[in-house]
């Protein structure tokens, strides 16, 4: 139990970021791992909501897809997909939306639709929007988890699939979006948070062993750095054990 991988650092810190949340709308992949880890460690009461229709799912192993049978079997309630999006998400009933991203910009806007591969090549397809645009719009707050690289953290999105803070601090209210938007971006290098004044993502924490320079080099725009950059607490043995048990299940 000494040592950990960058992905484990990312997942553990993403799980910790859920502190205080009562309900979480969970995207599949990294967000699902983090939300499930939170439920197994600090927040046993966390209500996991999956867009496939499961309210309060308690999977014993990490689901490969958002439609795995165990999600329905362990849920407090199973609802139709239209009901999930209309009554539960759109109405602003969920505390935190947890999203991944293919491309992210400095205002935490997300692209999961398509990437520009240069004038001579066709646009590259990504999976598309899924539930993300309305998760980003309607949850009380949004957490984003993704691996940190200049390919992912870009100066300009090729397509805006989901709105973070638009182009500044007033855009969400101008657009009539319900929640306060992204409050943290957790990567395998550290944590970025929107500046309270400008809404621009700012490096506020690095993971143990990571330097600010590393993060800057992995970011596709001139990254703002907080006056004091904290170091995230290392994963506790309990967190690591829970994470590894969950992945092995």
């Amino acid at each position, binding site marked *: 139990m000494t040592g950990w991988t960058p992905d484990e650092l990312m997942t553990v810190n993403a799980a910790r970021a859920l502190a205080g949340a009562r309900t979480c709308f969970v995207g599949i992949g990294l967000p699902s791992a983090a939300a499930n880890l939170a439920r197994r460690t600090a927040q046993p009461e966390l209500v996991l909501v999956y867009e496939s229709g499961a309210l309060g799912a308690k999977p014993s192993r990490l689901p490969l*897809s*958002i439609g*795995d049978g165990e999600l329905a079997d362990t849920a407090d309630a*199973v609802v139709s997909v239209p009901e999930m999006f*209309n009554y539960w998400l759109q109405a602003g009933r969920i505390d935190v939306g947890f999203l991944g991203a293919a491309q992210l910009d400095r205002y935490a806007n997300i692209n999961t639709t398509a990437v520009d591969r240069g004038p001579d090549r066709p646009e590259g*397809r990504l*999976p598309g929007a899924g539930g993300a*645009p309305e998760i980003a719009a309607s949850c009380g707050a949004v957490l984003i988890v993704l691996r940190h690289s200049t390919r992912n953290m870009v100066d300009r999105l090729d397509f805006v699939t989901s709105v973070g803070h638009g182009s500044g601090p007033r855009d969400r209210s101008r*657009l*009539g979006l319900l929640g306060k938007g992204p409050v943290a971006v957790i990567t395998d290098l550290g944590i970025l948070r929107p500046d309270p004044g400008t809404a621009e993502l700012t490096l506020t924490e690095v993971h143990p062993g990571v330097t600010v320079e590393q993060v800057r080099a992995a970011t596709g725009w001139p990254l703002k750095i907080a006056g004091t950059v904290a170091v995230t607490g290392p994963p506790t043995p309990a967190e690591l054990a829970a994470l590894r048990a969950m992945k092995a299940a």
Partner: protein
Amino acid sequence: MAELATLREAVAELIHDGDVVAMEGFTHLIPFAAAHEVIRQGLADLTLVRMTPDVVYDQLIGAGAARKLVFSWGGNPGVGSLHRFRDAVENGWPHPLEVDEHSHAGMANRYVAGASGLPFAVVRAYRGTDLASRTSTVSTVTCPFTGEKLAAVAALNPDVTVIHAQQADRAGNVQLWGLTGVQKEAALAARRVLVTVEEIVDRLTPRPGGVVLPGWAITAVAEVPGGAHPSYAAGYSVRDNGFYQAWDAVSRDRDTFTAWIRDNILERP
């Protein structure tokens, strides 16, 4: 009342070249066997509608059945890309694929409008995104009470919707349970409805979480045990995650894919 038919008869009767076809099932209860029959019958020029195209539409697209895709999330869940979908969109293989792309909320409500006999649905969606710039099926409406501008999405009314369910009785009443997704809406929005089922029983027993579609709202029912594989039918099978993971390598290469379709669909009736 719904007609009880073989899958071959039902597909031949209900689905035609050029149709708008929705096959729904949100990870669970995906009508794979019906899609394979569509490939076997060589149907072409289809507009395929589905929130999550998944491996089932990767197969139909790669086999050349589709002209257009209406969708909201096109990946192999938990695995990665849909290579045949990407190859069609990016490189036009086996031929170009037009896309009409929405968010899940938009797609779900397009079916709701279709099932409700309304020409559109109102959603708090798409604001600030580029999604509306690439589709003609998103617009705006203004609330006559508050003045707020909201998104309007056009109703979806497929020519045919195909779903898979656990059971039907002999009158064609259908029951599905577990994650039931958007299947009721997709079925009720369509002009014709084909349901494949794990089994036909004498009498449906109401189940917790069960959704019942009366036989008079369905066109045809075909008994196809295992008809959702590699997806699953709660109570009958589990999701074949291994198949989904293996699909990545099968679908990455055109020749490997084509051989797979030949060996597993065309030459297996």
